[in-house]
Every structure is written in C-alpha cells, then in structure tokens.
C-alpha cells in the first residue's frame, strides 16, 4: 500500500490531543501495513502550526496554505486533502474521530471513491480494522476494499504520539478544486470553561437525569467536579431535558471518554451512555436505584441519595 496520510486538526494555532492520537494511530498503521507517515496541516495561515506538527515525529509534515482553508470548512478541506492524498501517494488516510474529522472523512471518501470506516478502535496486522457498532454492543472486524482507505480513529483507543520528534516540513502547492457553492462560516460560540477538555480530561464527573434540573448541576455536581479538577459530562437524558449543553454529552451519539476516573452521578446507565465511558479505568456510580444498569460496569458503586452523597464527598475531598 502507499503512505499513511494523517489529517492535523488544529484550533487557535494549536494542535489538540486528538491530532497527536491520530498520529499515534497512523504510526501504528504504518508499522503494521508499511509506508511513511505524512502529517498534513491545512489552513489559511500555517504560522507556527508546522513546527508544532513536526514535533509529533511523522516521517514528514506537509502544509497547504490557502485563504479558502480558513474556518475548517468540510467541503473545501476535503477537496484540498484529496489533492494532497494524490500528491503524497496516500494508501491510508487517518483522521481523529472528532466532529471535524467525521465531517471531512466521509466526504473525502466519496471524492476519492475510497472505502472508509469510522470510529476505528483497532488496526490489525492483516490490514483489517476494528470498529464498534450498535452503541458498542458489537465490535466488527472490517475489511476495506480498494487501494485507498480512509479511517477515523476513536481517540480513547490509541496512544498519542510523543512530542519529541522533528519531522522535515514541506510546503505543498495544491490547486484546490473549489466546490460550486461552498458553505460559509458565520460565527462561532465556544463553550468557555476553566475546566479540562472533556475528551482529554484525566477525571470526569458526569450527571444524569437524577440531578433533576439545571440548577442542581451547578449547585450539587459542579463543586465535586471542581474539587477533583475534573471535566464535567452528562448523559443524553440530562441533555435532552435541557439541564446542560449538548457538548457535554457522553455516549453513543456524544463524546467518547476514557479517563482514569469516571464518576457517574444520577445516571441510570443506558447502553447508549455506557458506549461513551465504558473504557474508563476506574468507574464510580452513585445512584439511589440499586438496580440501575450503571452498577454493572462500576468498579465502585454507592447506592445513595446523590443530594446527600455528592456534597459529603465534595466536603471530604476539598
């Protein structure tokens, strides 16, 4: 097969951990399947991004600088990546399975008529891949047909590449085949928080419907979140009920996390939620319903009224 091309997701001139993880997965793929690893940085201005990318130790960093690449538009980025893929003889293209990665990867797959698999959790020596289906109730081993393949990798399933490398950097000049009616960026509202990023946090405290309302997330759950220096998460039920924003959702259709410590508070533990946190190292469940399915995955379960147990725990930790 050809080389392994890795998409370098970036924001505010920085590379998130997801990019280091995509490089980690790309290196594993190259080791097993052959080829060089080529990390592609695309933006309207590359600036220091290339040097940061070079630290991740891919065989080579390639950059594409073009005003149309501002704002990570999926259509233009996919169009540009298609040209990069041809220029560097990419046999496998790797994305982190973030919202951005999942917007671009399938579009690129259709453009290149490449086979694709999303949310890959394993790369096998025989070139097959492993991916979860049915909210993680099944893990499929899949074969991707053809000479060019595209995967997005689940960020909890691979180790990030160390930042001790120094790849050579090459600026590519690429004619981007512009889409007819490209989507336009209007504005962005980022969730402001001093807490760790949910998908990168070492500790996560997540709340469910048991919290009963938005105010209790603030007054009961957040003090524990902050006492632990944790990120806050939530079940889909809590998001559905409007207690917290959707970007805190952990589960099948939200974020997938695997922190060292995950504390589920007032979460019953539907399979859709477990799909997003089951790989956490230590899971704690606090729920007053002893029959709640969350206890089946918990290392430590406390059957208790969360409105008493959580403040008590906060007080004893702080």
């Amino acid at each position, binding site marked *: 097969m050809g080389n392994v091309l890795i998409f370098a997701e970036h924001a505010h001139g920085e590379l998130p951990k997801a990019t280091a993880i995509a490089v980690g997965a790309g290196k594993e793929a190259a080791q097993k399947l052959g080829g060089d690893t080529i990390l592609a940085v695309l933006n309207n201005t590359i600036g220091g991004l290339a040097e940061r990318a070079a630290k991740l130790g891919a065989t080579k960093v390639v950059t594409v600088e073009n005003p149309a690449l501002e704002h990570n538009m999926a259509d233009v980025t996919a169009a540009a990546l298609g040209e990069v893929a041809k220029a560097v003889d990419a046999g496998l293209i790797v994305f982190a399975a973030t919202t951005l990665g999942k917007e671009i990867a399938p579009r690129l*797959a*259709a453009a290149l008529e490449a086979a694709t698999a*999303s949310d890959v959790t394993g790369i096998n020596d025989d070139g097959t891949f492993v991916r979860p289906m049915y909210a993680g109730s099944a893990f499929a081993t899949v074969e991707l047909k053809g000479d060019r393949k595209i995967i997005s990798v689940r960020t909890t399933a691979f180790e990030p590449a160390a930042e001790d490398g120094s790849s050579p950097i090459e600026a590519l000049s690429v004619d981007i085949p512009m*889409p007819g009616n490209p989507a*336009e960026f209007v504005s962005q509202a980022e969730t402001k928080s001093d807490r760790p990023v949910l998908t990168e946090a070492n500790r996560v405290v997540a709340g469910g419907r048991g919290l009963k309302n938005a105010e209790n997330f603030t007054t009961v759950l957040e003090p524990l979140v902050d006492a632990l220096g944790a990120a806050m998460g939530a079940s889909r039920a809590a998001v559905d009920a409007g207690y917290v924003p959707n970007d805190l959702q952990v589960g099948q259709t939200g974020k997938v996390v695997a922190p060292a*410590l995950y504390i589920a508070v007032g979460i019953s533990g539907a399979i859709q939620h477990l799909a997003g946190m089951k790989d956490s190292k230590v899971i704690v469940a606090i729920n007053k319903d002893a029959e709640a399915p969350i206890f089946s995955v918990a290392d430590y379960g406390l059957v208790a009224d969360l409105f008493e147990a959580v403040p008590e725990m906060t007080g004893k930790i702080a």
Partner: protein
Amino acid sequence: MKILVAIKRVPDAETTIKVNPEGTGIVNAGVKWVVNPFCEIAIEEALKIKETKGDVEVVLVTVGRSESQEQLRTGLAMGADRAILVTAENLDTTGVSRVLAKIVEKESPDVVFLGKQAIDDDSNEVGQMLAQRLGWAQACYISEFNMADDAKSAQVVREIDGGMRTDKVMLPAIITADLRLNEPRYASLPGIMKARKKPLEEIDGASLGVDLEPKIIIKSMAPPPARAAGRLVESVDELINALKNEAKVL
C-alpha cells in the same frame, strides 16, 4: 418547494443487541424496528418548514429491505406527503449515498435532511458522502435551521466539539440533524389513517444503474470485552478510601 428526507430502519434504542454465536452479525429475533431517532428529528424539521412556509412537499426516501415500508409509513403518519422505498440489501454507506444521489437527481429537492448518524452501524457518513456526490454544501450536526425568506440559502447552527458554530449554506444543500434540533412529534391516529393512503413508490435498487457493491466488508463480529466485576461500597468514606488506597486515583 420540495424537501427530501432520507431515513433508516434501525433496531429500537431500548432493544438489547447481542452478537450471534457464529460471530457473523447480531441476533435479529425479538428486535423491535423503528425509525432511526436522528431521522425522526430530520422528518420533524421538514414538517416544521412545511407548516411555516406552506406549499412545501415533504418526500421521504429509504434504502433497504421491503420491511422498511413500516418506517416510511411512520414518517407519512407524522405528516410527510409521499415516500420512496429503494429496495436493496447489504449496502454500505457508499452504496446508500450512490442510491440517494440518484433519487436526488430524480426528485430535484430544494434541501435534503438526514439524521447525523444511524444508531445501528454508527457510521455518521451518508450525508457527507451524498453532499460530495452532488457537489453540494453540507451542514452536519445542526441544532438550528433558519431558511432565508427567499429560500435560496439557510443559516444553520452546528454542534461541534467545544461549542457551536453558525454557517451559511446556499440551497440546495445536505443537512444532518443533531439531537437538539427539535422534539419529533408522535403520529396521531388520524395521521396514521391518512398515511395508509399516501403514495409509496417502490424502486428496485438494481434498476438505478449504480454500483451497489460494498467497499466495507464485515469479516466478523464480537461482543464487547467484559469489565471485571466491581463492588458496592456502603458509605462515602469507604468510597473515598477505596479510590485513594485501592484504585489510587485520588
């Protein structure tokens, strides 16, 4: 105006999915089949536009086995006007996107709504692939859809990692629905009665002249690795002690 909504038949989210003993797929017995939840949200959004704009035809399409008629009837009962069933089996997302591109060419809708992800294969791919095949803009994971008065463009709010962003797309475009876009309605009894008489066209997938050969082959399937059993603690003190001294995470 015409709105096309592509939907999928999937196992109900409440159904316990088990891998079959041969490791070739899931156990289908006892599975209740429903409209994929994100597709329901897509249908609802189309119906809301119909209600506010008037003179809008909402057309449903699905690609799958003939049983998928049930899900199309559900959508018709919610209020869609007519439905298209493209019969084909064992398609992957590539095949589905090729079929849908053909249907879009045939129907020339002003906008196409899909769910962001089907909860069976969890691929999250078809909308993006379809957009590329048509050369259209895509707006994925939307929680707000605002069509301009002249219906030539739409402003969308999209759920992205770490927040939300607003994009503008010229129509026609591909829109994929996220959870918070709306609260899908239930089909009313009169709606269900009416749905029986609404047109449902069946098209043989093989007749469309597109390559339906899957590019992704499932070689085997396995249940998830089991977690070692944990234990119950009696008190907050015992919990903190265990986290400090046993698990060593505090």
